[in-house]
Every structure is written in C-alpha cells, then in structure tokens.
C-alpha cells in the first residue's frame, strides 16, 4: 500500500503554467506542492519577452483562448495575484512586402472576428508612430494587450500561502495508480492525489510518447537608456507568419522589439528546431538587429549587453496539451505552450484547477478544452494529423 498522500495536488514544473495552476488550486483550499528540477521560471517562462498577446496567436481556438486569458489576466491584476506583474500597454505590428502585408490583413480580420479585448486603433503608414524608421509600409496599432514578465508572474502566484515549493528537485520517475501519484525525487518520495505535469520541454523526459519538440529562440538585451517613445512591443508581421504559418521560409527577419520597464530593449526572436540554450550566433543576431534598427533607429545608440537563447516546448500539431492522460486519470498535462504560456497561463490555471477538482468548465469552453486533450495523440496513425 502506498503512503497516505501528503498533498492534494502535486504540480511538476514551476513555470508560469504550473504556478498559475498552483495558485488556483490553493485558492480553492487544496494542499499543493510545486516541484521543479531547478527553480521558479527556470526555462521558457524566465527567458520569455512577457508579451500577453492575442495578435500572435493562430486564428480560431488559440486566439479565442488568448482573448479569454487576456481578460482574466487583467482581472487577476486588479487587486489580485498579478497586481504589479501585468501592465496594459499598446502593441504595434508592422510589415513591408507582400507576404507581411497579407499577414497584417489576416491579423486585422482575426481581431475583428474575435470581438475580444484587443482592438485595432490605427492602421496606416509608418508615420503613425513617431520614431519609427523607414522600411515600414504599414503599421497596425493595437490597444488592450499587455506585458507580464514570466518571472514576476511566477513569483506572484507562488507567494500565495498554502503552496509548498520544492526545488531543486529533478523528478526521477512518476508512478500513478487509481488512488494517486507518487513522485520519485531520488532522496525522497512524494505522494499526492493528483499530479499536474506542467513541465515544458522537460515533458519529454517523463512522457516521451507525447509529440513535444524543443524550439529555441535567440534574444538580445541592450543596455539601459532613457525610456523613449516606444510604449509597447513592436512586432514584425513575419513573426506572426513564423508563429501561425506552415513553416515556410520567412520573407524578412521575424523581429520583435520589446521596450522593458528598465529602459532596456529586448530584441528577438528566431524559432529554431533544437533545444540548445547555448547556441546564439552572430550572423543571426546581426540579421535581427539589422532589421530592428531600421525599424527603430534609436537602437543604433544602444549597446548589446547580453544575448541568450530560450527554449519553448512546441507540439507537433501546434496546440498545447491540456487534460488527463489517457489511462492515467490521476495525471493531468498542462504543457506544450510554445511561448504562449505567458498569455494563456491565467485561463489554463483556472480550467486545470477545475479539472483537478472534477468540476466542469464553463460550457462554452468545453469543446475548446477538449481539443487540447492528450487523448488526441492516441492512435495518431489511424486518425492522421489532428
């Protein structure tokens, strides 16, 4: 007989998704432990640009979820756990050339269809944003999105009383039965009634059957300077193509220029099919910086102080994996967000907390959430790509 459960819920992974799930469950009065191999926000959440963006999500399910999560994030930031972590700010998407133009058309119509919290407030020439350089044919200005550095949100969520944090503690093995789950942490075993696996790229180590692929992105950080006219992220339409498209060759570098509250800029980002955080190369950075400084010439007065690569957990079909593992009803997955975890974490945390408690989602979410279930990978061969 296994030992009695020490916790109602074990959460594997102290990234933003695990932290949000933990906060929601603790708020419901459950005893929660968060276990991480390294520590809080140690992987994608800590390396992210913090964009809470609907614009960058695929039309349909992902854009609907992002809209809902943005609204809920705003709610949680008004006197809730995310106060001080989330800030509303405008965002700008620019483009030049035919491919980027049609990506902008798609963006505008997607946002119109959503009738969500994100509105196009201006759509026109580069002169809409003072300080923008040449080489921009069209600029779309959005209101309603925001910025939430992953590490701040994780810290905010996990500071709630009732959450036990355990790190550094790599999980050696997971054993689940009909009554609960046991984690083998090497020096000790941990027993809970339910496990939520929010492991990001580390999902591969413990659930190798799931089709998760690491996807690296190179980023650049500049020195501090005067906070200038850029109040929100400036995103190349080719970045939307990279995130939502079929993986075709991009016409122009997929640049995102993010003004940080420190007066620094964070400039990204590529999407590369590997999981190496030490692979940052001059040629790629030069190409990102070259376009970035044409778009925002103030960058030419800055210095690069650091470069790094972050690794996101991508899923073969481009959708995250959320829900109970087939045949392991005590194990729930919440992973594979591929850089969208910052935006989706609020709503995913809420919904996974409901699933853990055996409660039904709000009816209009049932179908969307069902589409994210890991059950979709059963018999993939027969069904074909979902």
């Amino acid at each position, binding site marked *: 007989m296994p030992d009695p459960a020490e916790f109602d819920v074990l959460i594997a992974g102290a990234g933003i998704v695990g932290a949000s799930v933990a906060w929601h469950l603790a708020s419901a009065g459950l005893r929660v432990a968060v276990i991480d191999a390294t520590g809080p926000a140690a992987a994608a959440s800590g390396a992210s640009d913090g964009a809470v963006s609907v614009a960058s999500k695929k039309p349909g399910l992902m854009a609907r979820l992002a809209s809902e999560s943005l609204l809920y994030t705003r709610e949680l930031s008004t006197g809730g756990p995310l106060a001080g972590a989330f800030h509303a700010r405008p965002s700008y998407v620019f483009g030049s050339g035919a491919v980027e133009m049609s990506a902008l058309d798609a963006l505008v119509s997607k946002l119109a269809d959503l009738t969500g919290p994100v509105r196009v407030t201006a759509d026109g020439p580069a002169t809409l944003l003072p300080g923008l350089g040449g080489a921009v044919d069209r600029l779309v200005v959005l209101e309603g999105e925001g910025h939430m550095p992953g590490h701040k949100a994780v810290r905010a969520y996990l500071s709630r009383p009732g959450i036990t944090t355990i790190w550094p503690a790599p999980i050696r093995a997971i054993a689940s039965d009909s009554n609960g789950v046991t984690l083998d942490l090497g020096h000790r075993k941990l027993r809970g009634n339910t496990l939520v696996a929010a492991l990001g790229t580390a999902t591969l180590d413990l659930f190798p059957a799931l089709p998760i692929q690491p996807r690296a992105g190179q980023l650049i950080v500049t*020195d501090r300077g005067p906070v200038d006219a850029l109040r929100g992220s400036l995103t190349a339409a080719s970045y939307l193509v990279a995130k939502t498209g079929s993986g075709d060759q991009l016409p122009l570098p997929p640049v995102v220029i993010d003004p940080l509250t*420190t007066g620094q800029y964070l400039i990204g980002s590529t999407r590369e099919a590997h999981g190496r955080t030490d692979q940052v190369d001059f040629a790629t950075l030069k190409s990102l910086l070259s376009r970035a400084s044409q778009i925002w010439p103030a960058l030419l*007065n800055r210095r690069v102080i650091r470069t790094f690569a972050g690794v996101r957990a991508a899923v073969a079909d481009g959708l995250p994996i959320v829900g109970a593992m087939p045949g392991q009803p005590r194990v729930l997955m919440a992973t594979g967000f591929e850089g969208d975890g910052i935006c989706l974490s609020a709503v995913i945390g809420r919904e996974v907390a409901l699933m853990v408690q055996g409660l039904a989602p709000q009816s209009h979410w049932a179908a969307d959430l069902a589409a994210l279930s890991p059950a979709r990978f059963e018999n993939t061969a027969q069904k074909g790509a979902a």
Partner: protein
Amino acid sequence: MNHHIHWQARAIPFQTGESVASALQRAGIHQLGRAPTGQALAVFCGIGQCQGCLIMADGQVTEACLQICRDGLTLQPLDGDADV
C-alpha cells in the same frame, strides 16, 4: 597641452594619448553623471571592465577610461546637460 576636449561647456587640456578619464580626473572632475539606475558614474576599475565611467563621446556611449582624447572631442554625461 594645447589641445582640448570639451566636457559640457568646459575646455579641458589633455596629454597626447591619454584617456578621457585621466584628463577629467586631472581637472578635478570625478563624477561623470548619473546612470539610468540613479547610480553616480565615476572611474572605478580604470581599465574598461566595470562599466562605471560611461559617458557620451561625440554622441556615442563609451567608457571614459578607454576613450582616447582628441582635439575637439565633445563629451557629455549620460543624463544630459546636468551640471556635474
């Protein structure tokens, strides 16, 4: 010492080949401005490692201890024209 660099409105003589940091030190100028963090900028390591002596030299951010003086070089604190 017939040549000068210009620190804000002040002409400062220098010795051929010396750094901006050492010419300013000789002129009794220790504080070189304030960083965006509020920290006073001043020579600390003196050999280009610490980033503590950043100034604007002809419009570019650079280390005062690595920047070599040349006649007419215009220097300003990072935080603009504040009299330091």
